[in-house]
C-alpha cells in the first residue's frame, strides 16, 4: 500500500520572526473531522508579537488536534494533523488499521505506523496479550537513525534533501544509499508537470513514466527557448556568517538557499524583465514573484513546487516555506496548485559538490537561477590600504540560464550582479 495516500500532514507552529520561540493557541476554527481546504485558517496563534491565523498546509480532513486552546507550544511543534481524502463515517480516527473495515474513506482517516498500532483483538492472537511486545517508536519529524546520519556524513549526502521511504516518511538507510548513488547521474532537470499522485514505477529496462515526462519537457524547453547561460562568482563570506549566526538562534535551515532566494527576490525587483513568462507569443511580466524551488524526488525525478508571493517573505519565511514544500513534495502531499504558476525558479543541487551547471529553463518562465556548491578558495581581495592580498573565502558560482527570446546577456549579467552584490554585502 503506497504510504503517500495515508500519511497525514502536520500542521506545525510556524516561526513568525527570528526571535519567536513559542506561541499560544487562542482559538480553533475547525474540529476533528472537518473538511478543510488548503490555506483555510485552522486556528489563531498568539506570539508575543502578533496574533495570526495558521492556514492549513493541505486540503483534507482534520484528523487530530493536538494542542488545545490556551496551550503554549514551541515553534515547530505539531498543532494538528490533516489527512487526505474524505472523512470517516465514525469516530474511527484511531491509530492503526481496524480489522475488517473495508471503507476506503476509513482508510484515509487511518494513521499509519508512527503511532503504536492497536492490534486487532482476535482471540487467536493470544500471543500478544500474553507476551508484552513493544510497539515501534513514534517517528519524530526530524530524527535520523544512527546509520542514516553516519552514511549521510560519509557519503556527503544532505539528509534534508533525501526522500524518505520509511514509516511516516522517515529517511531510511536505503534512501541515503540510493541518494548517494545518484549523485553523478543527473544534471538538474526541471519539469513543470501536474502532480501525479498515482504514479507507480515502471519495470526495469525502460525509463519510468515520470522520467519520460520530465525528459519530454526538458526537450521541449530546449527546443523552444533560446537557452543561454551566464555565470558569476560570488563571495559568500557574509552569507556563511549569517548562516552560523542563524543556526545558533533560530530554526533557519543550514543551507544558503533561502538567503540566495531572498537576494534574488530583491534583484528581481530591480530587474523585472527576468520575472516573466513567455508562452508562444504572449509575453507577461509579473509583479509578484511566485518562486519555484526544484526538489529532488529521488528515483522519481524532480518536481518544482511554487512559493507564492515569495517576494514578500523574509529569509526565515522563505526557509520555512522551502523546507515545508520539500518535505511535502517528498511525501507526495503537494496540492496540484502548488506546482503551477511559478514566475521564476531557483535550483540548488550544490550539495553534491558540483560547481557550475547549465540549468534548463522551467517553461514558460524566462530565467532560472542555479546555486551550486560553496567552496573555499584563495581569492584576491583589496584591503583597506588598497593592497591586493590573497585570502581564503567561501565562493560560489551563480548560474543563470535565460531565454534569449525575451532577454539579452546584459540584462542577465546585471541581474546576476545584483544578486551577487546583495550576497557579498549580506548582513542578515
Amino acid at each position, binding site marked *: 500500500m503506497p504510504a503517500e495516500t495515508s500519511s497525514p500532514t502536520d500542521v506545525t507552529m510556524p516561526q513568525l520572526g527570528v526571535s519567536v520561540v513559542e506561541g499560544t493557541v487562542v482559538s480553533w476554527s475547525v474540529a476533528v473531522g472537518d473538511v478543510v481546504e488548503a490555506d483555510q485558517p485552522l486556528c489563531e496563534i498568539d506570539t508575543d508579537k502578533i496574533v495570526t491565523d495558521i492556514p492549513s498546509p493541505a486540503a483534507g480532513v482534520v484528523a487530530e488536534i493536538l494542542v488545545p486552546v490556551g496551550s503554549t507550544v514551541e515553534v515547530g511543534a505539531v498543532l494538528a494533523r490533516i489527512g487526505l481524502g474524505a472523512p470517516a463515517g465514525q469516530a474511527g480516527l484511531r491509530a492503526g488499521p481496524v480489522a475488517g473495515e473495508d471503507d476506503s474513506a476509513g482508510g484515509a482517516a487511518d494513521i499509519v*505506523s508512527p503511532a503504536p498500532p492497536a492490534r486487532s483483538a482476535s482471540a487467536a492472537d493470544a*500471543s500478544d496479550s*500474553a*507476551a508484552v511486545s513493544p510497539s*515501534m517508536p513514534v517517528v519524530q519529524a526530524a530524527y535520523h537513525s544512527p546509520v*542514516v546520519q553516519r552514511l549521510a556524513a560519509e557519503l556527503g549526502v544532505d539528509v534534508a534533501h533525501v526522500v524518505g521511504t520509511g*514509516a511516516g516518511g522517515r529517511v531510511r*538507510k536505503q534512501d541515503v544509499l540510493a541518494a548517494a548513488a545518484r549523485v553523478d547521474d543527473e544534471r538538474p532537470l526541471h519539469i513543470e508537470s501536474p502532480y501525479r499522485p498515482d504514479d507507480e514505477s515502471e519495470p526495469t529496462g525502460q525509463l519510468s513514466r515520470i522520467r519520460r515526462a520530465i525528459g519530454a519537457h526538458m526537450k521541449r524547453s530546449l527546443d523552444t527557448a533560446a537557452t543561454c547561460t551566464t555565470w558569476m562568482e560570488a563571495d559568500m563570506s557574509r552569507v556563511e556568517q549569517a548562516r552560523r549566526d542563524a543556526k545558533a538562534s533560530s530554526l533557519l535551515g543550514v543551507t544558503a538557499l533561502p538567503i540566495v532566494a531572498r537576494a534574488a527576490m530583491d534583484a528581481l525587483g530591480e530587474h523585472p524583465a527576468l520575472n516573466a513568462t513567455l508562452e508562444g507569443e504572449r509575453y507577461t511580466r509579473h509583479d509578484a514573484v511566485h518562486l519555484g524551488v526544484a526538489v529532488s524526488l529521488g528515483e522519481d525525478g524532480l518536481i518544482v513546487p511554487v512559493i507564492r508571493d515569495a517576494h514578500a517573505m523574509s529569509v526565515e519565511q522563505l526557509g520555512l516555506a522551502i523546507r515545508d514544500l520539500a518535505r511535502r513534495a517528498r511525501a507526495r502531499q503537494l496540492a496540484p496548485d502548488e506546482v503551477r504558476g511559478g514566475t521564476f525558479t531557483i535550483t540548488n543541487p550544490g550539495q553534491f559538490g558540483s560547481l557550475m551547471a547549465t540549468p534548463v529553463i522551467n517553461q514558460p518562465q524566462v530565467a532560472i537561477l542555479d546555486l551550486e556548491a560553496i567552496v573555499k578558495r584563495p581569492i584576491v581581495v583589496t584591503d583597506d590600504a588598497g593592497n591586493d592580498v590573497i585570502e581564503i573565502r567561501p565562493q560560489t558560482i551563480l548560474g543563470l540560464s535565460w531565454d534569449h527570446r525575451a532577454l539579452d546577456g546584459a540584462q542577465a549579467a546585471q541581474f546576476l550582479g545584483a544578486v551577487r552584490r546583495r550576497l557579498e554585502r549580506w548582513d542578515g
Partner: protein
Amino acid sequence: MPTMTYLEAISDALRQELRADERVLVMGEDVGAFGGAFKVTDGFVEEFGEGRVMDTPLAEAAIVGTAVGAAVVGMRPVCEMQFADFVACGFDQLVNVAGKTHYRSGLAVPIVVRLPSGGGFSGGPFHSQNPEAWFMHAPGIKVLAPSTPEDAKGLLTAAIRDPNPVVFLEHKHLYRRIKGEVPVGTYETPMTARLAREGEDLTVIAYGAMVHAALEATTPEQVDGASVEVLDLRSLVPLDTEAILATVAKTSKIVIVDEANETCAAGAQVAALIAEHAFEQLDGPIRRVATPDVPIPFSPPLEQAVLPSVERIRDACRDLLAY
C-alpha cells in the same frame, strides 16, 4: 551424505568419540541399559560396556562432580542431565568447581554436560526450560546450542575435545523433527555463528529451535517480499561477535529471538553488544521476541501463548521492516 535426525546426529558424534578415544565416557541417569530417556545412547552399553556408558544414581551434583574428578585425572566425561531443567541440582558443581578451577589453578576440566532443553509439547515448568543464560553468566563454561543435525554432531565432537567444561544444549523439539545431511566420519564444527539464510533488509538472530521458527516466519511471502537474513548463533560462549556485528552492518535492522525467558536471556546480551558496538549501523531499534518471564505452562493454549511463535516473529519483522 546420509540424512539423519538431530538426535541420530548426536548419537553419531558420541559413538564416534567413544570409539576413537578410550578416555571418553558417557554418564547419566538411564543412559546405559535403558539407552537413555530419549534413546540417544541406545545400543551403547552393548558396544562400550557399563564402565564407559555409566548408569548413575539420581544425583546431579555427583554426576557433575564425579565427572570433574574423572576429568582431572585424564578422562573425557560426557554427562547427561536427563532434562536441562535438572541441571539446577548440579549447578554448584558446574559453576563453582568445574567453571572456576582452571582460572584458579591452571587445571583443566574437560567435561561435557548435555542438556535436553526446550518446550513446546506440554512438558510443563520442569521439563521445558532453556537455561543457557545461567551458564553464559558463569565464567569458565562454554555453551553450545546447535540447530541442525550437522551442527549437532560437529559441535558435540568439538565439545568433547575441548579442554573446558562445555554445556551442550540439545533442543528436544528438534530431536526427531529436524533431519538433515550429516557428513560421514569425524569432524568438528567451529564454535562460531552460521548464516542460515542470507538477506539484505533485516536480520533475525536466533539459536536452537528458534532458528527454524525464524526461517519459517521470514520467507518472502510472509514479509511482503523483503529479504531477511537469519543468523544462527550456534555457540553462545564463545559468542561470535564478529558475525553479529557484520550482519548488523549489512541489514541495519535486527530482531533477536529467545525461547528462553526474556530477562537476561542470551538475546539480551546480543542486544547489548549491538547497541554498544554497532550503534551507527542501526536503522531502527533492536527488537526482541522472547518468552516472557514465566515458568513454562503445561496446557497447550497457555504454552503456545508464551513461547515465541512463528506469527510473533513474523510480526516483529514486519514492524521493523516498515520502520
